[in-house]
């Protein structure tokens, strides 16, 4: 295939270069001994060491992990329930509800951020890590629904009937048969949601209050003055962790039914 279409190969390589060259440069320069210039002056790990000593940064990491964890759990529980409801129990007005659940996937994130902020202000909920968490759960919910529902659709409904026929109650059939078979999708969705939460800037920016600084917010505030090699180092870590999580998520979702 590739051999017969050399231009296809060239386009693919150009694409990869376009996508990954900046990231590669960023990671490379996180090991650059020079503080200021874009010239390579020998390798060092000192920027990583500096990161580990920056307490404000570590606090931001902690916030990010906490928000990611809690919002992912909320989005997963609600998302699995919604996926089951949409796929297994047809009801009146299902299409409207379905559209409403999936809408956050297509509306611009800035609008979602502004809307959430206005909503929290109007119900007098002070902006804090709590509001950030709710915001993250909100945009992760449709992602969980889409992934889990996709797998649910491929599951043979006869499996649940078989469990019922063999003496399982509706609940036993669900947790002994449906949940184990959905698990790859649930785990995959969880990892993806966690990664998106970890990387999110816009919604966080609008819903975070004072002291609720997450990692992307911290990076942004550091970049405002100047791009330092610490930021390169931090970004390198973020990129690698995210890519690892996404890779794992995709691998899990590919498990055959």
């Amino acid at each position, binding site marked *: 295939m590739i051999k017969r279409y050399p231009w296809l190969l060239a386009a693919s390589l150009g694409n990869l270069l376009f996508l990954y060259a900046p990231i590669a440069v960023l990671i490379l320069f996180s090991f650059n001994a020079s503080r200021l210039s874009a010239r390579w002056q020998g390798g060092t790990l000192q920027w990583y060491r500096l990161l580990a000593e920056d307490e404000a940064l570590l606090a931001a990491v902690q916030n990010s992990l906490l928000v990611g964890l809690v919002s992912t759990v909320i989005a997963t529980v609600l998302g699995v329930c919604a996926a089951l409801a949409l796929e297994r129990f047809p009801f009146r007005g299902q299409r409207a509800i379905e559209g409403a659940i999936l809408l956050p996937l297509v509306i611009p994130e800035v609008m979602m951020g502004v809307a959430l902020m206005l909503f929290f202000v109007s119900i007098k909920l002070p902006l804090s890590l709590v509001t950030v968490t709710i915001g993250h759960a909100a945009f992760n919910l449709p992602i969980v629904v889409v992934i889990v529902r996709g797998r649910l659709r491929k599951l043979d409904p006869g499996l649940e009937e078989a469990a*019922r*026929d063999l003496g399982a109650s509706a609940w036993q059939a669900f947790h002994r048969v449906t949940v184990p078979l959905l698990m790859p999708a649930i785990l995959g969705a969880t990892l993806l949601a966690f990664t998106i939460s970890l990387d999110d800037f816009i919604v966080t920016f609008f819903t975070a209050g004072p002291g609720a600084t997450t990692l992307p917010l911290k990076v942004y505030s550091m970049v405002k003055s100047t791009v330092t090699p610490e930021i390169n180092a931090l970004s390198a870590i973020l990129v690698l962790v995210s890519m690892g999580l996404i890779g794992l998520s995709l691998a899990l979702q590919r498990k055959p039914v």
Partner: protein
Amino acid sequence: MAEVSVEIRNAVKAHGATLAVDHLSLEVRRGEFFSILGPSGSGKTTTLRLLAGFERLDQGDILIEGRSMRSVPPNHRPVNLVFQHYALFPHLTVFGNVSFGLEMRRLPKEEIRSRVASVLDMVRLTPKQDRWPAQLSGGEQQRVALARALVNQPSVLLLDEPLGALDQQLRQDMQVELKAIQEQVGITFICVTHHQEEALTMSDRVAIMHQGRLLQVGSPQEIYEAPASSFVAGFIGVSNTLRGRIARFNGTTCDVTVPGLPTGQAIVARPSAGAGVGSSVTLVLRPERLHLSNEVRVGGFDNVLEGRVSKAVYNGSEMQYLLSLADGISWKARVPNVGEGQKKFLPGEAVFVRWNADEGVVLTE
């Protein structure tokens, strides 16, 4: 009534505007291999799902071992179902699949192990008990599905097109094996199939369903030799038909006049109950009952029609002929291939078709 295992009383089930099951009443005896046979859309699968409890009756009742099942959910019914596509749990091993029902009943571990072992032994899957379903062949998966249901020792085993997904050779082997297993365990089997040969081979009795209604119940022989309607005759095997009118009775036989045959020539047949002079009837004849010859005089037959061979097909065990009789009537005939010296007819050749009165069935429409 102790020998009745399953009783369906006037069951009605609507799917939308159509009646999937239309006032069905049926009794299945304890320990018998009972098949429900019908084309797709006949309501046979719905009937099975009503028995398993996956669908609710609109009217009527279902009794299993004398107990009404109207308000009993599937997990509390004394039946188990072998699913059409097996529905094996892909995340459990063969052992895990077979032990599932016993675990749901919270039986002691030792008892579970010994019962699973003995049923796996019966279906010859002991060496594969740690495999995953995806690692098994179609026939093996089928036997796991059977074992998974049988291990619970249900009062009634339900089978939904049990051999439908198997290839021809395996299908025939499994027909024999399934029947043998049924005789060994002595459980009532109710099998739904659209495959008539399967139903005739395995069953003690067969019910024919069409458009939600029960057309006939009887032994395979009764169904085949004495179909109660032309639908049953056409659905079970190949049949030739002639439409006519009863002209007179002669003791145990009657004369049927058929439009298109030479005047004065009547078909001698065994009348059905309730037919009278002037009744319009359909005469049904199986292709293997016809005697073909090109000699004018052959004694010992009640009926003879003259025709021409329009097609001859050799299929190994028999010759199949398409015959055109008078006035556009087209019949099929099958002649077992008994080897050398047998007369073979060629297309275009004139033949005489002969048969006796008791080899045809007369249906009153």
